[in-house]
């Protein structure tokens, strides 16, 4: 805690005791900025994936489709029976038969707008909306097979699960990438701090000669690298923000390719990432500094 307070308050004289090191300073700022930028983008993709996956999962969980075959006799009679069954099923809040135009619109992407469905036998599609605690899908299937032979009830479970699994995997991979970014930042700052400590061995020797404690010497290095990492990461986070703002936004279409970014409290990541970079740099430099000072004894 004292180290953190000393870091924030600072000691101008202690800071001046270590000469400025141009290259390592610039590299630390650059690496921190790059890592923060990557972290922002990765987290934004992760959050967006999560949101889109949740939206899809919710939509699919609440909707189902009933398909009545065209080759089993009177489709209208089957439809009436099916609608009655659906209305009587607890957990089903709405059931509606698609119009001929709506069914044609569904096929349009595959067959084009010129297809005339009137000339073709076509199954009747019924959209089903569930609510509350849901419904007994197995029971409904059993009843439909008895009362509406040939009807196919699809609750989207077959492809909802793989979708959710894929979304979870993507999130997991991205969090792995974020952890890798943080670890890389720690490694780079440690290397830079090590290089600086070695380059300033004579300075350290003089400081020790005049009675400087390790904490005093380490503080000058730790403060320097922590502030550089913080500054670099802030620049990286701001650049990340600008990139996210420049992305095409269309939240309504639930596409991962559109609307990559944060929502609500997720925007706080833009503050957390620079702070986390500073904390990582603080821990990495402090460990490196005390380790190297012990080695120099």
């Amino acid at each position, binding site marked *: 805690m004292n180290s953190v307070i000393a870091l924030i308050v600072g000691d101008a*004289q202690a800071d001046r005791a270590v*000469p400025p090191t141009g290259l390592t300073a610039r590299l630390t700022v650059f690496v921190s900025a790059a890592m923060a930028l990557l972290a922002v983008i990765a987290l934004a993709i992760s959050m967006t994936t999560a949101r889109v996956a949740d939206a899809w999962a919710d939509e699919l969980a609440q909707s189902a489709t009933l398909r009545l075959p065209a080759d089993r006799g009177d489709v209208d009679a089957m439809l009436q029976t099916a609608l009655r069954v659906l209305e009587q099923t607890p957990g089903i809040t709405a059931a509606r038969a698609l119009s001929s135009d709506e069914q044609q619109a569904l096929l349009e992407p595959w067959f084009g707008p010129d297809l005339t469905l009137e000339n073709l036998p076509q199954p009747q599609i019924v959209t089903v909306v569930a609510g509350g605690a849901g419904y007994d899908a197995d029971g409904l299937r059993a009843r439909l097979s008895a009362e509406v032979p040939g009807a196919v009830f699809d609750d989207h479970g077959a492809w909802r699960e793989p979708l959710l699994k894929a979304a979870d995997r993507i999130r997991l991979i991205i969090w792995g990438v974020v952890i890798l970014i943080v670890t890389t930042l720690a490694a780079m700052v440690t290397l830079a701090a090590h290089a600086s400590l070695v380059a300033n061995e004579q*300075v350290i020797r003089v*400081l*020790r*000669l005049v*009675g400087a404690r*390790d904490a005093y010497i380490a503080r000058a290095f730790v403060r320097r690298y922590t502030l550089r990492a913080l500054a670099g990461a802030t620049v990286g986070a701001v650049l990340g923000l600008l990139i996210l703002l420049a992305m095409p936004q269309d939240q309504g279409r639930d596409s991962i390719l559109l609307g990559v970014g944060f929502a609500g409290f997720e925007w706080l990541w833009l503050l957390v990432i620079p702070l986390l970079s500073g904390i990582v740099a603080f821990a990495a430099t402090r460990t490196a500094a005390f380790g190297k000072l012990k080695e120099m004894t």
Partner: protein
Amino acid sequence: MRSISAEVLQIAKGSAVIELDKVSYGYGGSMLFSQLSLELAKGSFHFLTGASGAGKTTLLKLCYADLRAKTGQVRLFGKDAANLGRDEVAVARRRIGVVHQDCQFLDHLSIAENIVLPLTVAGRHDEVGKNLPELLKWVGLTKQADQRPPELSGGERQRAALARAVILSPDVILADEPTGNVDWEMSERLMKLLVELNKMGKSVLIATHDLGMIRTMKSQVSARVSRLKDGQLIQAGADL
């Protein structure tokens, strides 16, 4: 000349500030000296002489715990240096002013900032303004205060190193060839400054091969002279 390497070389009466008790040290496989004992009493003045490579600098480094004895015991202000942690060594060094032959400054800081460095690292910032002008005047570097160490002559650097060594008013001054890079006139001036410090009650240990300087200074201060030769510490006498 008589060998006293295995016995305590008492420099002056009074309590010891630094003691080396049957200390051995060497580099690589060979020993530079062994079973060497030395007691630096409070307020004493001591010259340590010997040929180049005899181990004068090594002995001084043992005295301020920059090196650890292979065998034997080094006591700083009554405490075994081997048992001191790095922070305790740092605190002990605030009571020991060291002047190196090459001075060892921080070249990116001004001479004034270098001189007050011991106060800065000790967190005694409020004493900087009080002590610095007087000290600069004492060593004759008032005009050079804002210059960087590389811009100063050898003598000026030595005086600056001496000012830095005494700014915390330490109990002991250890000087390694303080007149090595300066002319005779400057040597005498530096030595007079060290004698002044001794008269203020500071213990002084000077490692030098400049026998002429030792002879001159012996007329001004009651000093003991020891010689490091063949790994032994010998009290020098009339042969000096």
